[in-house]
């Protein structure tokens, strides 16, 4: 597996993981907020971590496409045929 693919997959997994963990375990418990303890998040700014997770998921596309590949950089560029 190329370094870029590995990093992109890692970013993707980290993003999904962060979003899932913050949603399920760090935010306020799922269900009816019948008490104050069930209304407040278990970890402050859990909602922000959820958003960061979603952002990381889409950032993996940038990692995959923009990150220079060592081997490819050394090799001469192969021009693609016209569209």
């Amino acid at each position, binding site marked *: 597996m190329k370094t870029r693919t590995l990093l992109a997959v890692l970013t993707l997994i980290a993003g999904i993981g962060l979003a899932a963990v913050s949603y399920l375990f760090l935010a306020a418990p799922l269900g009816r907020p019948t008490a104050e303890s069930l*209304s407040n*998040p278990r970890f402050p700014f859990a*909602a922000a971590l*959820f*958003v960061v997770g979603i952002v990381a998921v*889409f950032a993996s596309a*940038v990692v995959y496409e923009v990150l220079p590949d060592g081997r490819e950089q050394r090799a001469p560029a192969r*021009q*693609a045929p016209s569209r």
Partner: protein
Amino acid sequence: MSVRAERLPHGVGRLSAAASFLVFALLALVALGIYAYSRQFVEGEIVTGMRDIGTMGGAAWGLYIAFVVYFVGVSFAGITIAAVVRLLDLEFLRPISRMAELLTVITLLLGAFSVLADLGQPLRGIINLFRYGRPMSPFFGTFSLVMSGYLFASLVYLYLSGRRDAALMAQRQTSLRWFYRLWAAGYRHTAEEQARHHRTSFWLALSILPLLVTAHSTLGFVFGLQTGRPGWYSALQAPGFVVLAGVSGTGLLIVVAALLRQTTGARDQLGMAVFRWLGNFLMVLTAAYLYFIVVEWLTSAYAAHTSEARVSASIMSGTYAPVFWASVGLLVLSFGVLFVQFVTRRHSLALIVLAGVLVNLAAIGKRFLIVVPSQTHGTLLPYGPGYYSPTWVEYSVIVGLVSLGTLLFILFVKVFPIIEVKEQPQGGR
């Protein structure tokens, strides 16, 4: 890299006298919006027409929230069309792909600004949202998933799809060469890079589509899940939001594409086939939304609860009747115009653009009717009917925001090709 001296494509880098005048006029309107918002920030929301529900006989959400829904709605069609073009390989629609992506990014920003305008203390609102927000709440979903996740995803899509053209522009001697090089980020148009972009854009498009349906449904749930607010509590809210979002977004995209066809001279790329497809797509969406209106009207007027009937009466024959019937009339007229063209197979660009304008006016009216009447006439407590009328401050802020969006669009068009450039970048170094 070679350096060429020829003119930049699609009007990039050129600002005519008319365009300069337009930019100055828009800047003046943005300044008016900033001034109006400064009055609101200093004096409080008393300078707006918004008041507490019930006790003050008003509406706590007014024009700002109506436009949040409108702006976010417009963003829907942009990225949907860009994603569909990629997923279904609709080559003839590629010229509108980038303008659709840009429309999404700009209208999402305007939506976020509208939320900030609605908050008396914007900073406190933002911090507390991320500090205490419950991710399962529709409010959180709307203002974080939509404004952050969806906006970021759209930006990524716009950025990656523009790298090829950025590389092409970077081969020319311009004062913005540094910007194009930064955007291109080493792109050389090799077969490997093309294949990689092909894969990325496919998966991005595939993941954006469910995200945006979720995001727009969530916005509908902000209203649709409020059991104590007659007029809002409805299973139709979420699908209605998605379909009207498609109507307004496609309509605005038609108008933008037609304006760019005229101003950039890209008549070949933005041919009638593009507008025919967009017009037919708009016709189907408008028909679906008209069906939703009929279903909603029948349900709320047939044997509704007293409080529900009071809201629907205020919309259909009371205070809000002019807005409602004008919106319905504009939607019916647009559908008729598009349907006649579809049946006769004779399409007129002017009529398609007219339909695009009309559905947007109708969408603004409908968004207003979704937000306001349930607050002024939908209380379950023993309060009389309320009243809401926006003040010059609210109108000025909205005009300022729309001007800001137009300004951002024009600036982008002047620094980057809004339509994909035909020629191929020179590869290799």
